[in-house]
């Protein structure tokens, strides 16, 4: 299939349409504006729904409503706007509603900056909402992977009856790369949506209620245990990752995702030129964290060098996943600074020097 050059934000928007998105609710925030702008034109063209909400809070509540009525819904924002949505995301989880949320990450905390960042890892995986909530979350590294995951996410959201988040950094949102927008993705067998509040109670023969309130604590516990079963299923089936260069049985392995992983690939090449062979464990799912990847590391691997565009948020999950088997090192830039491959090379050399 012929490839087209597209900007990340627009490619994600088109992928959503191809993935069967019925409705989009969002709000302007840099660096993801091209996504709602694209949909403001193309949703109407495809006879679907677009609303620019008055705020991110309103948008996520519109998502909640539309999802409860059975639609496949999308919202997008960037870090501070995602923080605003956390209450709504908790409601989606508690009410077991599907939704797709795209986060084009920028520097923080607070208003922060508009340059690319990965400092939302905690907000995404620990979530910023109340209660025992989890959001199925992915972090693609290039536009093709992003487009494929966005398309698939609508089915995943429906399958699990849970929000799905796709986290890219500002670089991915703004860059242009050739993509095959019609590349087939796996189709998931979806259960019927007979639980939705579509206004057909008479026809259906029963009334449907979309609720997250359970005043009886034993009922609420039961509900949470059921949610845990869902999370367990995600942990069983949705761990996604890529192992790079493991055939070299590397002693040092990078752990990195998104644009940081791509930059790390260049570092791997630069180091290989000096006959230093490092590998990379690239998480593609952030929740569930790819424990299986860590379990499959070669026994020669001694050091995991975590690379992040943050002060080190995934670092904690690396330590947990490694479970004491490796030395854990960290290199990061934050505030929206994007590192160069040479900086990672220098860090590896420093680690090797200290080991001597």
């Amino acid at each position: 299939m012929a490839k087209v050059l597209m900007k990340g934000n627009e490619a994600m928007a088109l992928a959503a349409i191809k993935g069967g998105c019925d409705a989009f609710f969002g709000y302007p925030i840099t660096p993801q504006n091209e996504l709602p702008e694209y949909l403001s034109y193309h949703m109407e063209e495809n006879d679907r729904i677009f609303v620019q909400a008055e705020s991110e809070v309103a948008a996520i509540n519109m998502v909640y409503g539309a999802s409860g009525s059975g639609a496949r819904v999308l919202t997008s924002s960037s870090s501070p706007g995602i923080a605003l949505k956390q209450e709504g995301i908790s409601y989606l989880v508690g009410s077991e509603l599907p939704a797709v949320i795209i986060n084009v990450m920028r520097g923080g905390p607070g208003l922060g900056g508009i340059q690319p960042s990965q400092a939302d890892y905690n907000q995404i995986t620990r979530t910023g909402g109340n209660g025992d909530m989890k959001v199925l979350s992915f972090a693609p590294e290039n536009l093709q992977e992003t487009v494929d995951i966005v398309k698939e996410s609508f089915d995943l959201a429906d399958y699990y009856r849970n929000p799905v988040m796709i986290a890219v950094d500002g670089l991915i949102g703004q860059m242009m790369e050739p993509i095959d927008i019609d590349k087939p993705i796996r189709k998931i067998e979806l259960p019927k949506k007979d639980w939705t509040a579509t206004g057909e109670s008479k026809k259906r023969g029963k009334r449907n209620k979309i609720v997250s309130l359970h005043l009886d604590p034993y009922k609420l516990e039961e509900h949470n245990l059921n949610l845990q079963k869902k999370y367990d299923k995600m942990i069983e089936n949705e761990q996604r990752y890529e192992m790079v260069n493991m055939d070299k049985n590397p002693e040092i392995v990078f752990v990195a995702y998104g644009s940081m992983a791509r930059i790390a690939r260049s570092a791997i090449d630069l180091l290989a030129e000096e006959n230093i062979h490092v590998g990379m464990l690239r998480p593609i799912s952030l929740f569930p964290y790819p424990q299986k990847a860590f379990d499959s590391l070669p026994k020669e691997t001694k050091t995991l060098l975590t690379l992040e565009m943050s002060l080190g948020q995934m670092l904690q999950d690396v330590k947990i996943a490694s479970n004491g088997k490796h030395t854990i090192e960290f290199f990061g830039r934050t505030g929206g600074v994007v590192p160069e491959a040479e900086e990672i090379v220098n860090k590896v050399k420093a680690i090797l020097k200290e080991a001597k």
Partner: protein
Amino acid sequence: MKTKTIYKPTDGLVDRDLSYCPGCTHGIIHKLVGEVLSEKGLIDEAIGVASVGCSVMSYEFFNCDMQQAAHGRAPAVATGIKRVRPESAVFTYQGDGDLASIGMAEVVHAAHRGENMTVIFVNNAIYGMTGGQMAPTTLLDQKTTTSPTGRKKIGTGEPIRVSEMLATVPGATYLERVSVHDPKHMRKAKKAIEKAFDVQMNKQGFSMIEFISTCPINWGINPNDSLKWSVENMIPYYPLGVYKDGTKEDSNE
């Protein structure tokens, strides 16, 4: 030859270049607010609240203490400040996306409570900083990046008139809509700002001055034509004038 200074930049503003786009009326409005605060002797103790939009950097320009608010929250932030510092002149400086979209609840409730603050509301019918999206005050048929075929009444509603709406809120004491497109209107706008701060410092309640403003960059027309466009298109829909003067009611009791 003796020289006499007949005009100098106000010390209500920091002595530095502004970072706004060429032809943007933020420059004029900043100047008028700065002049009023300075001439009334309020600038030294004033506390301004910067919002999120093109004027996000206004904390670099007003020559007083400033605090940045999250998008839309400036009236709430100003409430916190004014309650703790009632002797200071407290003002917010907000665009139409900030005030009339995400911040609608905050400005209504600050007015509702009758907070002794002054809101400077700059309405240019578009989201400037983020690249030209539709705002609640965008006119019907106006093309923006999220209303690419023109704003339609069905689905997005007619533009909202904030001054008229807030006039129905009891706690709002002084509301006036002004323009700065020529010297005559600038003088009137300055008087409006003076009145607003008088209301605040006399503890008479909430005041807001709504400025009809332009955005040459995102409207896609040059600064002069933008001023003309605002006069020909915005003012008919957003008429200038006083929408509430609660001080007159007080004097009648």
